[in-house]
């Protein structure tokens, strides 16, 4: 909606790796087990072992069959849950069951507070940050403008569409000026057209903020369109079975879905995933 | 909820036993602290209750209360369900009357007892009326909400099958709305009981409520404790049973 392609050169996937920044997030030998609720008390191995480095400034997407622990992976990085084994670090510091400063999260479900106006919702994100009132105003106005919410500042979330509410949540994260943005299926509840447009907006703000983006999604096309690199997860216990480099230029937008390479990437993702998805829905493995 | 209800009734029983033990310990401790002037220990109370239950003068009072409560409950359930269904299937009628019911639900009905006394006189009619007005409104309101919340596709299904109003209520609306209606009946049961007892306390010369009021006036601690114990026992086991049935209904739904 806001992003318009500025370059006329044809987009072709190149194999040049994205800017080789230092690892901003690093997972080493990470496992997650939990105890199934109820009296049986059996242990479920949800995830891992996983080794993964996120480069500073890259757009990394994770796809996987349902129930493979994608969201658990994000919660580990967000400090919303703790790994059973292994280390998760952000900018060299371990994450201890608490979200580090400089990390923002947007969830799949509508997380806007229905009792606060759009503006108050966005200001809520600044509660944990000590800044002077002027800077505060600047950041709120900036986030409102960036997400196209300026004229809705005094509306309540219930007066907005699902896509607009999700923008409120993104704006609430943006005001903290995060260096890493975690997106947990943020467009899962939206219709296909809105998702494509929201994808453009995410790409746009990824470029503008220079933040690293870590996206969890079940939609292969979404991952293929948005990410620099895509991690493919196995069925439970989720492990990374493939990492695909898309090689898209930085100023891409949703129109790359017409590219031949886009089809090639989704096809490769689906090749890796098909057997795993079969397992996830309880069918025996089938050779493609 | 799931862990306790589907985790078997063992956990439920254990929890209930713990609760009873806790209440008894608290009761005993309070009785020691307060002393003989105002309280009896659990053991003393139970002994006196046993005596009360064997004394012939007690039974007519119990029978009187039982009859009044039974009648009040019957009236509350029948009228409550009727109002609930009527307003539940008629949108306009419920738009008109639901706010009235809500307002009636929230007035302190205890203040109305002198009016009921003047209307019905000092007898069984007044306390039945008192019990009924306490119980009927929650039953009506819960039923109304339950019927209105029935998934529209069920009603549509009934329509395409050509069901009439009667078959629609008995075949679709009642079963679909049953869990919520039962919650209303449970609340209505409690409130009808308290209403009947309050009616007896203020507006009667017979029944357990009257005995209780009399004992309060005479400061007869033994009788107060024994009657309260009996009533709590009855109300507790009845509503425990209803709660159990209610949860089973919700599980099925």
């Amino acid at each position, binding site marked *: 909606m806001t992003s318009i392609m500025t370059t006329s050169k044809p987009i072709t996937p190149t194999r040049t790796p994205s800017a080789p920044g230092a690892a901003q997030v690093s997972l080493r030998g990470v496992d997650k087990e939990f105890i199934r609720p109820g009296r049986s008390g059996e242990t479920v191995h949800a995830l891992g072992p996983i080794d993964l480095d996120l480069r500073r400034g890259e757009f990394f997407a994770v796809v996987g069959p349902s129930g493979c622990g994608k969201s658990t992976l994000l919660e580990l990085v967000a400090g*919303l849950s703790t790994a059973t084994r292994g280390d998760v670090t952000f900018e060299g510091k371990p994450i201890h069951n608490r979200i580090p400063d400089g990390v923002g999260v947007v969830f799949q479900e509508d997380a806007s507070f229905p009792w606060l106006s759009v503006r108050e919702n966005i200001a809520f994100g600044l509660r944990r940050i000590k800044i002077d009132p002027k800077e505060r105003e600047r950041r709120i106005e900036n986030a409102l403008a960036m997400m196209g919410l300026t004229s809705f500042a005094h509306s309540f979330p219930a007066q907005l569409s699902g896509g607009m509410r999700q923008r409120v949540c993104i704006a609430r994260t943006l005001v903290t000026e995060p260096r890493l943005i975690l997106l947990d299926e943020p467009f899962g509840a939206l219709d296909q057209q809105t998702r494509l447009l929201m994808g453009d907006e995410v790409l746009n703000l990824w470029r503008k903020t220079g933040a690293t983006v870590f996206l969890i999604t079940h939609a292969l096309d979404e991952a293929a369109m948005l990410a620099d690199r895509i991690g493919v997860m196995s069925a439970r216990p989720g492990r990374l079975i493939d990492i695909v480099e898309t090689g898209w230029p930085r100023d891409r937008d949703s129109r790359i879905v017409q590219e031949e390479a886009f089809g090639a990437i989704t096809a490769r993702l689906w090749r890796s995933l098909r057997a795993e998805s079969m397992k996830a829905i309880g069918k025996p493995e089938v050779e493609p | 909820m799931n862990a306790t209800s589907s985790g078997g009734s063992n956990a439920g029983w254990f929890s209930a036993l713990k609760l009873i033990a806790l209440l008894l310990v608290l009761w005993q401790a309070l009785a020691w602290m307060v002393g003989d002037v105002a309280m009896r220990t659990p053991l003393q109370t139970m002994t006196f209750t046993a005596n009360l239950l064997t004394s012939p003068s007690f039974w007519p009072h119990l029978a009187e209360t039982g009859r009044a409560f039974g009648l009040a409950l019957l009236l509350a359930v029948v009228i409550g369900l009727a109002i609930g269904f009527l307003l539940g299937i008629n949108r306009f009628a419920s738009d008109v009357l639901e706010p009235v019911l809500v307002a009636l639900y929230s007035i302190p009905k205890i203040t109305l007892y002198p*009016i009921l006394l003047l209307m019905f006189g000092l007898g069984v009619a007044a306390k039945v009326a008192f019990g009924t007005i306490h119980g009927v409104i929650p039953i009506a309101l819960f039923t109304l909400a339950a019927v209105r919340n029935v998934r529209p596709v069920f009603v549509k299904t009934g329509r395409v099958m050509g069901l009439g109003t009667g078959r629609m209520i008995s075949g679709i609306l009642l079963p679909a709305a049953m869990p919520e209606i039962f919650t209303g009946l449970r609340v209505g049961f409690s409130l009808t009981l308290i209403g009947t007892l309050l009616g007896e306390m203020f507006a009667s010369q017979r029944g357990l409520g009257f005995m209780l009021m009399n004992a309060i006036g005479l400061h007869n601690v033994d009788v107060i404790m024994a009657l309260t114990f009996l009533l709590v026992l009855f109300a507790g086991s009845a509503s425990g049973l209803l709660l159990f049935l209610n949860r089973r209904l919700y599980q099925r739904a």
Partner: protein
Amino acid sequence: MTPKKRAALWRIALLVGAVGGLEILCLSGHIDRLTMQPPHRIVMDLVALLAGGELNGAIAKTLRNAALAFVIAMVAGVSFAVLLHYLRSLRDMLDPVFATYYAIPMFAFYPLLIVLFGLGDTPQIFIGAMLAVVAVIVNTLNGLDRIPRVLLKTARVNQLSAWDTARLVMLPCAAPHILTGAKLAVAYSLIGIIGAEFIMSTGGMGYEISFAYMNFDNAKMYPLILLILLVSIAINTLLAKWEKILMARRGLS
């Protein structure tokens, strides 16, 4: 005209009709004067009573005590509900108590409370608060149960302390349900105070009503009853308005 407006007009018409019918029945002598005064008479008596000022002390006493009981019940009830929300096992244990609570004649404990606190206002306020608190707890818990998990995750992501999470996320989110509890608490505080005044007291509206009843003083009894009903309906209407604003803000009607 919108259906809502039409319903409101019908409702007003019905209420006017009911009062008018009562007026006619009273004036024509079908309801004799010893049973009930005609409605216009009650209103005039009320105005005269308030202007005369002889019962202002009693009215102030009852309303003050009810307000105190209400505030205590709200603060204690909401805090206890938040606590129970975290203590799952305690809550499972207490669930049957809440389900039975309103079937128990709380007034049976009034003599005990008088021994404990003396024959002042304290035992009355205690009874009022005891009656109201469970309605607040149950409804607050109901609201807390419905908080979407993602909002609590958002609180954690924003590094809120437990106190701030309760204050800024949980309670605002549960506010409509807490208001429902508050509406019931208004009625129960009044019931507690007035019931206790009926039973044993030296003043207050409940005492005046039962005194007037015994002396066939309908010119005093009916206006006082009307006043209590008006006060409780007025407070409830205000709370309902507030609730409506909150719900509308959330896109629920």
